[in-house]
Structures are given as C-alpha cells and as structure tokens.
C-alpha cells in the first residue's frame, strides 16, 4: 500500500489538489475563494501533465547528446530522453488558465461595482429584495 502511494505520489498529489479546488468551487460562498479554487483545479491538471513527462536515471533532454559516460550520440530510444511534449502543451494551458482568471477577475469587478459585496449569499439577498 505504502509502495503504491510512494511510487505514484505525483498522481496522488494532483488528485488531492484537484479535490481541494473542487471543494473550494462548490462549497465556498465567497466569489474570490471560488476563483482561487478554480485556479487550484487548473493547476492540478497542469501538475499532472508536467509530472508525466518526468523520467529518473540516466536520461537527457532531446536536444542534448545522450550519455556522458559512453560516447556522445543523439538520444533516439524513448527511454533515454525526457518527453518535452506535455510541458509544451502546458505552456498553452497555463496561458489559458491565466486568461480565464483574468476574465473572471474582470467579471468580479463588475459584480462588486453592482452589489458592493462579493459574498454570494448577500448578492442573492440583494437580488431577492430587488425582485419583490
């Protein structure tokens, strides 16, 4: 059991982070906290992607020659280099998550200007009073 936890600790970490984010998004009543939860949620996915490209041991990055000890040659075997693709994908995903956060913050400013609060309960109360 412990073996399973330790050998795949990156997956456990991303699942825990993701659940924290999900909890914040669903349970918190403050809109900024919800937004932070959303960011944690996205970061968990990014962490997952980044961690799947990692290899330990005698490996190199694809642009460098492989093997300091046994001559210099290009790393051709997949086991000999780190996969850079997930990292490159995540550059895009990070941009997406920042853009989302930016839009969400702008929307929060609009909400604050209108209601003078960012607590969901109070906003709903104001809406109800306006409705009756």
């Amino acid at each position, binding site marked *: 059991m412990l073996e399973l936890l330790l050998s795949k600790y990156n997956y456990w970490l991303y699942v825990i982070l993701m659940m924290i984010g999900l909890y914040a998004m669903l349970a918190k009543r403050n809109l900024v906290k919800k937004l932070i939860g959303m960011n944690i949620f996205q970061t968990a996915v990014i962490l997952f992607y980044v961690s799947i490209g990692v290899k330990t041991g005698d490996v190199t990055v694809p642009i460098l020659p492989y093997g300091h000890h046994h001559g210099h040659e290009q790393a051709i075997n997949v086991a000999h280099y780190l996969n850079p693709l997930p990292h490159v994908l995540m550059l895009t995903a990070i941009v997406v998550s920042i853009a989302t956060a930016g*839009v969400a913050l702008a929307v929060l400013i609009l909400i604050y200007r209108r209601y003078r609060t960012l607590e969901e309960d109070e906003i709903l109360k104001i809406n109800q009073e306006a409705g009756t």
Partner: protein
Amino acid sequence: MTHQFPALIIVVPLLAALATPLVGWKNGRLCYYWAVFTMALVCFFAIGLLRSVILNGPISYHQGGWAPPWGIEYYVDYLNAFMLPIIAVISLIVIIYSKHSINRELGGRQMPTYTLILLMITGLMGIVVTGDLFNVFVFLEIASLSCYGLIASGQDGAPLATFRYIIMGTIGASCYLLGVGYLYIVTGSLNLADVSQLIPPLYHSRVVLSAGVLMLVGISLKMALFPLHTWLPNAYAYAPSSVSALIAPLFTKVAAYLMIRVMFTLFRPDFFTTIIPATTILSWLAVTAMMIGSFYAIAQDSLKKMLCYSVVAQIGYIALGIALANKAGLIGALLHILNEAFTKGCVFLVVGAIIYQTGDCTIDHFKNLFRRMPYTMGAFTIGVFSMIGIPPTCGFFSKLSLLMGCIVDHHWVFVAVLLISTILNVIYFFRVIKVASFEEPEADYGRKAPYDQVRMEEVPLSMRIPIMLMAAGILLTGIFSSTIAKTILIHIVPAGF
C-alpha cells in the same frame, strides 16, 4: 484551391478579430461592415469545403507541413463539413441582424463586441475543423473565453451569471483536458485518428476507461446536458439579445458535435455502449433533460428565459439521438442540430426584435403583437412549428428520425417521453401565440384602439430580413431534409450501426 480552406477558415476570422480594433479605431460603426465581410468570406470557405468533401471525400490538411501523428492535422470529413456551414451561415445571419440591436443595447461598445464575436466564431470553427485532441481544448477555451466576455456585457444580472458559467465551463474544460492527458499517457499521441487506432487493444485498461468518462463529463458540461445545465438559462437570458441569438444556436451544438466525435470516432461505438454503459446513462439523462427543461420553460414569465430552458430541453433530444447509438438515432441527432441551429436562431432573433421595439420580453405584455409586428411574429410562428415538429419544418423530420431510433431498439419509455415533451412544447409556445394574437390590450392604453387601428411597428429592414432568412432556413432544411440525409448524414454514421 480548396486545399487551403481548412486553414483559412480559422485564420481569416482570427486575423479579422485582431484587426477589428484598428478598423473601429475612429468609427465603431465600421466594425459591423468588417464583421459582415469577414463572415461572408468564412461562409464561402465553409460551403466550398462542404462541396469539396461531397465531391472528393475527406480532406486532411497538415499544419505547417508536418505529417499527422506529429504535427497538427486539420481533418474535414462529412461530419465537420456538415457542421462548418451551419456555424458560418448562422453567424453571418446573426451578425447582419446585430447592427441596430448592438447599437441600442451596447452603444459605443461595437468594437470590443465584434472583436469577441469574431474570436468566438474562430474558436467554434477551430473545435470543428481540427483533428488534434489538444487543439480542441485550446479552441474550446478560445470560444468559451470570448463567450464569457460577450455574456458579461449584458444587463443587470449578467456578471453573476457569467461568473457561474466561468466556474462550470472551466471544470468542464479541465475534465476534458485531463481525459486527453490519460489518453496521451497510454498512446503517446494526440492526433484523433491516430489515437483511435491505437486504443482498441487497451479498451479494458482503467486509464482508458477513466479517460472516456472524464472527456464525456467535460463535454456534457459544455453542452449543458441535465443535470449540468444550471449555468445556461441565466447566462443566455442576461446576455445582449444579438449575443444570445449567436451563442444559443451554436455553442451547445458544437459541444454536441464534440460528443459525437468522441463517442463514435475517437472511441469505437461499442466502447460506450457495452464496455461502459455510458449510452444508457446518457439516454436517461437526456430524457430527464427534455422533461425538466420543458417544465421549467412553462413556468417562465419572460420569453427569453423560456427559450433558454427550451435550449436545455432540445439538448436532451440531441443527446438522446447520440445515446441511442443506432442509425436512425444518430441521423435524428444530426438533423436536430441543423434544425435547432436555425430554429433557436430564428426565435432568439425574434426575441431581440421584440426587445428592440417594446423594451422587454414578458409574455403578458405581448398583446396585439401579431398586428404590430406581423413579419416578425410570422417568423416566430414558423420557429414554433419547427420546435413542436409540424411538417414541413425540419423539426418534424428530426423528431421522426429520433422516434424511429427509439422504436428500432424498443425503447418505449423514450418514445413516450418524446411525445409528452412535444405536448409540453405545444403548451408553452401556444401561450405566447395566444397572448400575442388573440388577447385584447388593456384599457389603460388610454386610447383603447379598435383591433384594426393598431399601428404597425416593425423593426428596421436590416433586422427583419435576417429573421425572414432564418425562417426560410427552417422551411428549406425541412423540405430538403431527406436530400441532406442521403448526401451527407448517411456517410457520418459509423460502420457497425
């Protein structure tokens, strides 16, 4: 010449969106003509692609000349070629319509609005045209982010509704991204066609199973399938009227397209029917969506809100057709996507016109509307007929096909729900028509005019013609639905159905 079209259909609206601030630098009104011009070009590309696919078969475009499993491939087969003209034509019509409506509702903000509209269309086109799983995520977020911006520019409750939409939409996109990551771990590929060839031996691996489920949940969120629909009604109802007329027909339908792609192209159909019973769950959710959406629609006072719940119900029809996973069901779902695009486009444009003339869209205030806006309300009636499913509108043929799909597989409960929800449709739409045509206006108008002396107060021609075009589209797609099914849709149905 057509071999560059798959790239141009993305590049042209993207560059046009980036150039919109320059065009509107001195005079914001120019942006309208710029957007119409761009969309006319995009329509030309989309129809050219459809023609080329029908004549010569699927097109594969290698982005930057990199061959598929490594480079990003744009792949246009019958399914994409069917979706592209729908998106292009509907957005062209709505943009032509939007001139006065956006002037009045968002006066002085034409430049950012048209920039976002073009960006959103880029995103929607991208989701459809690309053959790369990660690329789909990027385009999905381009479309969603511009959509958030557009909705937030609406009236009072819009920002809060948008914030909820952002949260739900981001969960959906992240789930999809996670699913793609799982598939990438086991296959090492992101190309849709390549992955679909590599995974069949791994169908019982837990990673692939979770990948399938995550992608399906993510897409259902974007598609607003019950019970993940809660963000939709408020977001669409508070958006400016031209914006809701643009996103209501297109956004959820593009998500439905994505669902068809994932279920029948990325995975083999039997993965979701037998290995995990996703289609059973989906079909029950779909029929619940049909009932719940219709019930909520009956309870609404505002026509726009009612139509938003109707979107939820209609998504149920499409999801049911997909989940039936048989030939008639899938053709019904695809026809319903086409039908919904024109029908929802038409009725949302009418709502926009009513708001433009009278300032609100509470159903009880519609008295005498048939006399005051005969053309608009005529188009609305055609839209309602299509939503109920009265021939010769397209709604009749799509519902018929869905019904056939249920009967073929002996799903009698679904047959019953389809018929009941049709009756509910009749109830909530005929309330509108009854108020608008038969009820006399109240005496407190001051001049309780005799029925034949009511002035005609039609909307400007640039709004009326698009509404008529949409209504004509509903009728034409209905009349030619069997031709469409024979030339295009039959090729989309995967082997083994």
